[in-house]
């Protein structure tokens, strides 16, 4: 088993540029993850590949950095009383099943339509999921902001689902809800499948927890960290079993992302509840635009459309740049609102 693996392995030499790049992307990705529960990972895989890291090693190392980051974030937010561990663990186990299903679908598509087909599938899923869910979350966030309500209301769907008494019912103390496991499973599996496809399960996990299960955005985003930890640990063990993890890359990303995740978690205690939804929706929609620019490349590879080579190159670059932009915008909103809220709080204490 070790033989064929060793042939694939090409670990890159690190230089100052790649070290700084990984640290910074790690920091920003961590900041976003600490705040909205996941995210940031989607930039790292293409980012590492642009440094010359082979695709599988990039995916494996990304996965390996994700679970310690989620662990640290989850512990931090648990101290703030935001994490429902039971909910996270149950969801995490089923999400792991979703990951396996997602990988099977990926494999099937890879066999049937080749690499370009698989890439196209990933990008289409990206655009579809992010646009649908992202615009829904954004609409909700804007509605909350406009109405100026502090407390979140449970959606009517979640309320109805919580009323259905279907064995086995589980009570979640921190999330303050009681629901049948049967309604958690689809959300968890979808989270896992999305994680296996686009590396960020949270884009379904967090909205699913908010709108279908009925948790508040703070609890949902904090609990997503537990789900990400369980999924990440499982995934890492598999990748590491095949010897694909480049520990140096992981350590460099972690160096930055743990700084970020702490700050992101601190940020959640300051901002209004709709801010989490707002940041999440913003990132999702910008990323959707970025993946939209990546579509023509795969379409022309499959000879569905024909485009000039230089156009495709330009669009691919634009796609990556917009993806980075999504993270930077998200991170700046978080930092800006964190420091603004801190200043206000300090002023009010001094005033008293």
């Amino acid at each position, binding site marked *: 088993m070790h033989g064929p693996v060793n042939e694939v392995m090409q670990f890159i030499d690190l230089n100052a540029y790649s070290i700084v790049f990984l640290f910074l992307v790690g920091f920003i990705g961590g900041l976003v993850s600490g705040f909205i529960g996941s995210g940031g990972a989607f930039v790292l895989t293409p980012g590492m590949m642009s440094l010359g890291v082979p695709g599988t090693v990039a995916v494996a190392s990304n996965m390996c950095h994700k679970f310690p980051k989620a662990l640290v974030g989850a512990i931090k937010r648990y101290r703030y*009383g935001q994490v429902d561990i039971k909910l996270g663990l149950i969801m995490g186990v089923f999400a792991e099943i979703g990951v396996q299903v997602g990988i099977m679908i990926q494999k099937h598509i890879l066999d049937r339509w080749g690499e370009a087909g698989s890439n196209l599938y990933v990008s289409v899923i990206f655009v579809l999921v992010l646009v649908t869910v992202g615009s829904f979350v954004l609409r909700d966030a804007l509605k909350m902001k406009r109405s100026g309500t502090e407390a979140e209301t449970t959606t009517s769907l979640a309320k109805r689902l919580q009323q259905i008494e279907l064995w086995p019912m589980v009570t979640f103390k921190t999330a303050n809800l009681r629901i049948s496991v049967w309604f958690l499973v689809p959300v968890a599996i979808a989270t896992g499948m999305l994680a296996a496809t686009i590396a960020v399960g949270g884009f379904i996990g967090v909205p699913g927890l908010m709108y279908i299960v009925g948790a*508040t955005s*703070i609890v949902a985003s*904090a609990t997503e960290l537990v789900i990400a930890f369980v999924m990440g*640990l499982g995934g890492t063990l598999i990748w590491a079993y095949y010897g694909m993890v480049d*520990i140096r890359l992981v350590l460099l990303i972690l*160096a930055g992302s743990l700084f970020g995740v702490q700050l992101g978690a601190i940020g959640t205690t300051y901002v209004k509840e709709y801010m989490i939804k707002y940041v999440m929706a913003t990132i999702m929609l910008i990323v959707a635009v970025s993946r939209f620019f990546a579509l023509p490349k795969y379409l022309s590879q499959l000879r569905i459309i024909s485009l000039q080579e230089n156009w495709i190159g330009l669009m691919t670059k634009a796609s990556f740049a917009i993806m980075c932009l999504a993270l930077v915008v998200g991170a700046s909103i978080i930092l800006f609102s964190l420091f603004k809220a801190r200043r206000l709080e300090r002023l009010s204490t001094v005033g008293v």
Partner: protein
Amino acid sequence: MTTQTTTTSSSTRTETPALTASRVEAPRDRPFILALTRNGHMSEPVMEYALRVAHRLGYGILAVHVDTMPLAKLEKRSHLFAAAVAESVALLREHADRLGLAVEHLQTAGRIGDLVARLCRARKRIDFVIIDKGIRLEEVTRQSPVPVFPVVNRQQSLFVRTFINKHTHKGVSAMATITSKRHVKHCLLFGSLTAGLYASVFAYQDLVMTWFSKGGVYALLPVATVFAVSYFHGNFTSAFWSALGIEASRAGAGRQTSTRPAVPEPAVAPRRDTRPRVQLNA
């Protein structure tokens, strides 16, 4: 060992002294609840529970602040401890005054088990002890002749509130300087541990890469390494932001869930009342 005792009996000032007046014939006979803490500030749930039970039973409260670290008696620390205790006691007295309860206060140092045994022997009318968080239950029960109840505080946020209700923030902000120093210390400790870990991985990167990418059982090597990193570096980054003064909002930390009413537990049939009853046939 320094011991200072102050007593205020404010039961005379109350207009509707519910049970207090009828049960207590003389202040000397007044039964007491011993509320024990080793923190500068008695946590709110303990204070609240003591006040509520004392009011209902017509008891007095004996609040005891124990400094369990008299050996580490740094000038500054004991000064700050005293300031925090003063604030805590002022708050307790304020509430007790409103309810018309008698409050005695004792600030002392020493071992908690010995102290409880000594107090219960010296004052016959301590009926039970309630202990604040930070005190181990066994430590007290081993030597206590009366029942001991720990007050469990599930929500971290409530603890914070005692700090905010203060007239002055002197003790609090001064205590904060100590924690900030601790953050710096943690920051240095975990920072150097993290640096050591990183340095060793990168100094021997060829060796590390050969072993870590072997696959199979060696998969545990990278996983164990990242767990170590999440512990060392996680603590370092946490202490780093805290040392810079960037910490969670005091108002927001507890605001985890909405104000929805708590989910009712699944219905359980009420327990049968098996107490003996008197029957009267006229």
